[in-house]
């Protein structure tokens, strides 16, 4: 038994050394990236200083065009949107931003649902590399499981499944990644199919965590006196009703946050050529949409 325990300890020491060394290497190269979504998350959390910030998922990332906002509002702008990441991610980013400075305006692009979805918790893994050095985001990441503080003792775990992107982000192979302009990543496809009718999103039981975290986002802006607009950006499908959007509007109304829904805007519903796919505008669509949002922002700033 003693021999077994001794050998287990030796094995654990070897694993610990490898884990520590490789973890440190991954950490170094992860934060050394100069392109890609991981670099943009790092920038969003640690370096943003722009006047206007956009928060959201892939729809935010591809819909809010930096040039339009910067030129027409004569302000600096950064798009923190990230594919497949919703309310939890956005609130974590906001917490980190507010530790450093107060933006002049926040645009929140609403997408997703308030219902429970295990995948939304799993995708919080995108914040694991920041867990050790950003205590402000920890209790959001801990929603993944109560064991996150223990798992993050490992050096490699926060960088699980990221090595491929870390390699690409460091070797800088030309053309491997679409260039982003202050977070905005353009899409250049053109949708050809006719518009379709999608299923109605009926009322459902909301995930309390999501409601709490979304309300926190609204509250943080309010407490810090940051003007905020919630927008649902265009889609290329018809629907009768969508409970998620209705609930989002209700929560915004309760907090007196301006809410604008573009999902039934006919300028977009009649123009498939402005879309890359039914949920994402292409670069032309993003230009037109950003123009419309700029008008809203001007109105909002004027009223203050």
């Amino acid at each position, binding site marked *: 038994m003693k021999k077994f325990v001794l050998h287990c300890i030796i094995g654990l020491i070897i694993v610990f050394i490898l884990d520590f060394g490789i973890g440190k290497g991954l950490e170094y190269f992860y934060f050394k990236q100069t392109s890609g979504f991981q670099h943009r998350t790092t920038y969003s959390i640690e370096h943003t200083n722009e006047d206007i910030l956009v928060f959201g998922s892939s729809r935010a990332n591809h819909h809010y065009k930096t040039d339009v906002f910067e030129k027409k509002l004569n302000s600096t702008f950064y798009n923190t949107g990230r594919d497949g990441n919703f309310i939890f991610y956005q609130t974590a980013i906001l917490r980190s931003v507010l530790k450093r400075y107060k933006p002049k305006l926040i645009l929140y692009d609403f997408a997703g649902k308030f219902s429970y979805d295990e995948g939304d918790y799993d995708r919080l893994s995108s914040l694991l590399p920041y867990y050790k050095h950003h205590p402000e985001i920890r209790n959001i990441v801990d929603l993944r499981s109560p064991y996150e503080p223990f798992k993050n003792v490992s050096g*490699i775990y926060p960088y699980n499944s990221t090595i*491929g992107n870390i390699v690409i982000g460091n070797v800088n192979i030309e053309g491997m990644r679409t260039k982003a302009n202050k977070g905005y990543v353009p899409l250049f496809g053109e949708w050809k199919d006719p518009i379709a009718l999608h299923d109605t999103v009926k009322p459902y039981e909301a995930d309390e965590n999501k409601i709490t975290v979304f309300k926190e986002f609204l509250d943080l802006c309010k407490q810090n006196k940051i003007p905020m607009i919630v927008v649902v950006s265009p889609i290329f499908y018809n629907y009768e009703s969508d409970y998620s959007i209705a609930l989002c509007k209700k929560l915004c109304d309760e907090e007196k946050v301006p809410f604008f829904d573009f999902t039934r805007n006919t300028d977009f519903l009649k123009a498939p050529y402005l879309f890359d796919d039914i949920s994402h505008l292409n670069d032309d669509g993003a230009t037109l949409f950003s123009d419309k949002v700029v008008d809203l922002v001007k109105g909002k700033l004027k009223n203050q």
Partner: protein
Amino acid sequence: MLFNSFEFLLFFPIVAILYYLITPKYRWVFLLVASYYFYMNWQPIYAILIFTSTLVTYLCALKIDSTPVQSRKKAYLTASLIINLGILFLFKYYNFFNDSIFGLLNDWGIRMTLPNFDLLLPVGISFYTFQAVGYTIDVYRGDIKSEKHFGIYALFVSFFPQLVAGPIERAVNLLPQFKETKIFNYQQAVQGIKLMIWGYFMKIVVADRLAIYVNSVYGAPEYHSAITLIIATIFFAFQIYCDFAGYSNIAIGCAKIMGFDLMTNFRRPYFAQSCAEFWSRWHISLSTWFKDYVYIPLGGNRVGTSKNYRNILITFLVSGLWHGANWTYVIWGGLNGLYQVIFKILGISPKRKKEGSRFNLVYIGNLLLTFILISFSWIFFRANSLSDAITVIERMVTAPGGLFIGEKSSFAYSLFAIIVLMLKDAYDEFYPDGNLFFTSKVRTIRYLSYSIIIVIILLLGVFDGGQFIYFQF
């Protein structure tokens, strides 16, 4: 509790340490409590089903043993089978048969309905039911004596390493082990740890990684090209192997650390040279169960040719149904039975070549043909419905278009995982006495090899992969 959960990584070392610290006389009590705790982490109420199955088979076996009258023995056996298989039927098959039979009657214009039950399928019900039923049949046949100690017998049915997904143990192998005083065995424990590490690699790095691609393709097969569907099917062949063999390795490893030997469940099945050989390497505990309790009682191969073919087909159809209450599983089972019959009719029965004469075209041809046939049958196993399976097959030969990659890095990790898996399997297959890496004579190399596997698990494992596929059976 899942083997791939953080809870289990805490639970198992505590159980293993306490097991050796407790007086041997009371170890069975501790393991029994630990096993029920392990199971009750899912749906505590369903522990009643295990207990019922345990009680019924225990009492029936005692009665079978104690009565000299053959007809009474048979009556007790029948009672045990009816109650156990009845519970299994109610929870697993009732809705399926209800829908199928009344759907068919409806097609003929006869409108009849029976309400469906909204019951959650108890995890591992097919495994522990078969293990308990197998025990009763063994007692009836006189192969073993009935177990008098109810606690020990309850532990045999509920032993946590193999409770929810096997290996389906035989009483003759496992029951006596619970009565032995286990003294810690260094070699056995080391072997157990190695099996567990490799099992975790198979599950977390290979199976759960491949599942990402497979789920996205099989979730909407109508949108994917032929090449994508072929790749997804090949990926699924490796996913299902690693998911299940990974579980078995962890189960066998856990048991070994505590001094128990469970039967081998997988022996590198994709190195089989025929479908018959595949089934002697795949889910061995279930294959032998069906052989002993279904195929041989039907007459096995000691009957005429046509009856032998019938027996093979029946056995595989039942095996298909065992896997799930869906026509896709029945067809999967039937297809595998058909392969065996066709191979027999054509007289194809490749014998394993001896060392040195393996790497020839015939060997590789047989290996590839077997892999293709088995992978084809997996389409029915994986498809969400029969119509989806037909869509997959149709599009595999008609749909043009390029390969869907999905997330590039995840696809690359998938390929890497398969390569590592196959390299190890090939090495174990062709050089069973070799001493490279995991089996090196140099301890440092062995340590490093397993440490690197742990690092790969941390680096590329999918920690949100969820439960094992076979839990649903």
